[in-house]
C-alpha cells in the first residue's frame, strides 16, 4: 500500500492549482489523479476563448502545465472509486491496476456534473438525440463528431450559448434557445452570438415534452406568458440548464476536516480564475494541516 501526504482527485484547473501550491509551500509527497488520459479536465474540451482573458481552454491548460513542477506524481487514466474514513482511496486504472492508497489530507477537485433531462419534469419519450451541452462539447471538440441538426437548446446559460455559437460555426442550424427566465442567462460576451448569428431566443418558456420514438423528432415548447404550446421539429436537443458540484465520492462521509473541496466541486464558478484561486487555497490549507499535525 502506498502513502502520500496529499492526494488530489481531479487534474483539472483546481487540481493542478492545488498540487502546485501545496508543492511550492513545501509538500513533496503529492499524488494527483485523473480519470482522463491527459491533465486539464473540462478545459480540454473548451475550444472557445475567454480563459485568462483571451486563451482557449486547451491553450490555458498548456500555460498551466508549463509551470507545473515535474516532481509532483501524476496518475492519469485512473479512476478514484471510493474514499474511506480511514483515509484511504481505492483506485482503478489501466496502468496501475486496482489499488489502495492512504494519505493524510485529501483534496477534492472533481469538478461538476451537468443537470440532465432525466431530473427535469419533462414529459415524452426518451429517444436518441438528447444530450447535455457539455456532452456535445466533448463530442465535437474531443471526438470530432457533430450532433444532427437542426438543434434546440434548453437553457441560455454560458455553456448553452457557447455551444450554440460553436454549432452554428460548424454549419448546424440552431432553431432556438429556450430560456425559463424572462431574459438570457449567460454573460454579456457570450450573449453576443445571439445577434451575430441570428439565433432565436425564446424567453419565459420551457421544453415540456420530448417527441420521437427511436430518434428525436421534435420538442414541445410552452410559453409561460402567452400560455401557448408549439412543437419545434428538431433532431437534437441540448440540455444546458445548469451544473452542480460533483461530490458523489464523499456522499455519506459527513464533514471531515481532512477533506478539502475546491473549484467546481465546491461551488460552480463562472470563471476559471476563481477556480485556480480556490485550488491554490486548498493546497495551502492541506499543507498547513499536515505541518500542524492536524
Amino acid at each position, binding site marked *: 500500500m502506498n502513502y502520500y501526504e496529499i492526494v488530489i482527485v481531479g487534474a483539472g484547473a483546481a487540481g493542478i492549482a492545488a498540487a502546485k501550491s501545496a508543492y511550492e509551500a513545501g509538500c513533496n509527497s503529492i499524488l494527483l489523479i485523473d*480519470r482522463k488520459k491527459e491533465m486539464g479536465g473540462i478545459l480540454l474540451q473548451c475550444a472557445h476563448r475567454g480563459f485568462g482573458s483571451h486563451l482557449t481552454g486547451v491553450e490555458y491548460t498548456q500555460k498551466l502545465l508549463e509551470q507545473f513542477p515535474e516532481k509532483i506524481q501524476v496518475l492519469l*487514466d485512473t*479512476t478514484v*472509486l471510493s474514499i474511506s474514513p480511514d483515509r484511504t482511496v*481505492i483506485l*482503478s*486504472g*489501466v*496502468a*496501475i*491496476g*486496482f*489499488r*489502495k492508497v492512504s494519505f493524510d489530507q485529501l483534496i477534492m477537485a472533481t469538478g461538476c*456534473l*451537468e443537470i*440532465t*433531462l*432525466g*431530473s427535469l*419534469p*419533462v*414529459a*415524452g*419519450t*426518451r429517444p436518441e438525440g438528447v*444530450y*447535455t451541452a*457539455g*456532452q456535445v462539447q*466533448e*463530442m465535437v471538440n*474531443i*471526438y470530432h*463528431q457533430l450532433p444532427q441538426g437542426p438543434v434546440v437548446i434548453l437553457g441560455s446559460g454560458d455553456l448553452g450559448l457557447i455551444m450554440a455559437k460553436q454549432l452554428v460555426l460548424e454549419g448546424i442550424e440552431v432553431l432556438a434557445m429556450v430560456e425559463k427566465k424572462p431574459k438570457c442567462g449567460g454573460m454579456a460576451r457570450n450573449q453576443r452570438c445571439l445577434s451575430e448569428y441570428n439565433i432565436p431566443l425564446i424567453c419565459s418558456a420551457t421544453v*415540456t*415534452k420530448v*417527441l*420521437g*420514438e427511436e430518434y428525436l423528432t421534435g420538442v414541445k415548447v410552452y410559453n409561460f406568458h402567452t400560455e401557448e404550446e408549439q412543437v419545434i421539429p428538431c433532431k437534437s436537443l441540448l440540455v444546458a440548464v445548469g451544473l452542480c458540484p460533483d461530490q*458523489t465520492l464523499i*456522499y*455519506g462521509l459527513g464533514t471531515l476536516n481532512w477533506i478539502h473541496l475546491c473549484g467546481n466541486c465546491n461551488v460552480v464558478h463562472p470563471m476559471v480564475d476563481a477556480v485556480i484561486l480556490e485550488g491554490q487555497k486548498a493546497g495551502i490549507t492541506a499543507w498547513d494541516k499536515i505541518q500542524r499535525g492536524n
Partner: protein
Amino acid sequence: MKVVDTVVIGGGVLGCFVARNLMRWKISVVLLEEKNDVCMGVTKANTAIVYAGYDNQPGSLKAEMTVHGNEVFDTLCKDLEVPFLRRGSLMVGFGPQADKVMQKKFNHGIRNNVPGLRLISGKEACEMEPHLASGVTSALYAPTTGTVNPWQLGIAAYENAIQNGCDVWLKTKVIGIQKTEYGYAVETTKEFIECRAILNCAGLSADKIQELLFPPTVRLILDGSEFLVLDRHTATPEHIIFHESEEAGKGITAVPTVEGNLLLASSKRPMDGEYFSTSSKSMDRLRSIAADILPKVDLNQVIRSFGAVRPNPHWMVEKKGKLVPDGKSIGSFVIENPAPGFYSLIGIKTPGLTCADELGKYLADRTAEYLNALPNRGFNPKRQAIRAVRKMNFETRNSLVMRDPDYGDIVCQCEDISKAEILEAIRRGATSIAGVKYRVGVGMGQCQGSRCSQIISKLLEGARHELL
C-alpha cells in the same frame, strides 16, 4: 427457406423464456425479433416486481403460476446468475375503501397459499417501514414479494437459450403466416420459415400476429404509466410499497430495485401520443402522491423519468355486424390456441415477469407434447453473468485487473463499470448504448450516460469494424 420445428415470435422477456424452455426438449427453434436486440419493447419499462400472488383470483392459472413462480424465483435467478432480492412488500391504505380492498386481497392470498402473508395495523406498518407517512390505516405484508431487473432477467434467459442451441434472427419482422400441409409457413422480412409450431409472444403486436392467420378473438387496448428513478445515494424504503388509494386503481408503487435506486411507478392512464411517452399530468400526480406517502424520500434526487406501455387484452364481440373489443380488460392470462401447434400469449401484463419462466414452461411442454418431442438431456439451465468488478472483493478485483487491464479501465464512473464488461456485453449481442446498458448497467447513474456514452459508442463502432 429455412425449416425448423418451432418459431418463437418476439424477443421480450416472455419470448426469451419460451425459447429457453423449448431447449429442454429436442426441438429446433428460431426466435424472431423485430428490433436489433431483445428486451427492447414492453420488457424495458416494467415495475421490476416479483409478486407474492395475493392479487389473483383463487383457483386461476394466474394465481397458481404467480405463487409457484415466486417460490422458485431464487433457484431461477441462481441458475441464470441474475440478482434477485426478496424485499418483502407492504400494501398500505389510508382509509376505509383501501382497508376493504386489503381484506379482500388478504383472503385471496390465504386461499392462494401465499406464504407469510399478514394483515397488519397502520402502526405496525410504520414501525416496519419508517419511510411511510403516518395515517396508514391498515397494511398487507407479504414477505415473499421481490424485485428483479426485467431486462437482465430476459437477456439471461435469451443467452441461456442460445447456449442450448436456440437460433435467433434479429431485425426480422413477421409479415405473413400461412397454413401448410406440414404446419405453418412464416413469411419474414428475411426469408420464409417452414415450421410445425408457432409460439406468438409478440407483446404489443401479439393480437395482430395471430390475426395474420386467424379471425380476431382478442384485441389489445394499450394504456400507459410513468416511472421516476431516484439516485441510488438517496435514502429509500426497504420494502416494496404498494399504495392502495381510496379511489380504486389510482395508487402508486415504490420499488427499491436490485441496483439500489428507488423506482416510483404511477397508476395506469389511457395512452396519449407515442408509445413509451410520459404525460406531465400523470408525472405530477405521481410526484405529489409519493411526497404524501413517503415524505422522507427526497424527490429532488430524481435522475430519470420514462413511460411504460401496458397491453390490455379485450375479448372481441359482435356489435351491429362488426367485431369490436368488449371494453373489459381480461383478468386472466390469455393463452390462445386457435389451431394445433399455434399458441399466442396476448396481453400478458402483471404479473408476467413473475410468471415468465412458468409461462415459458407451460407453452414449451404443450409444444413438446404436440411435436412428440423427446427431452433434451443435455439442457444446461445455468448461464454465467458478465463479471462485474463492482461486485468483487478487493483481492478478486485486484487479481483480475492484473490479468486483464481492461477490468481496471473504468468507463462508467457513476456505476463503476469497466471497459472489459462493456466489451463482453458487446460480444454477447449488444448493438447499441441501450443494449450495453441493459447488459451491464452503464449510464444508470447520476450523469445518465452523459460522461461515458461517447466512449461506449467508440467501443461499439470498434466491434462493428472487427466484424467487417
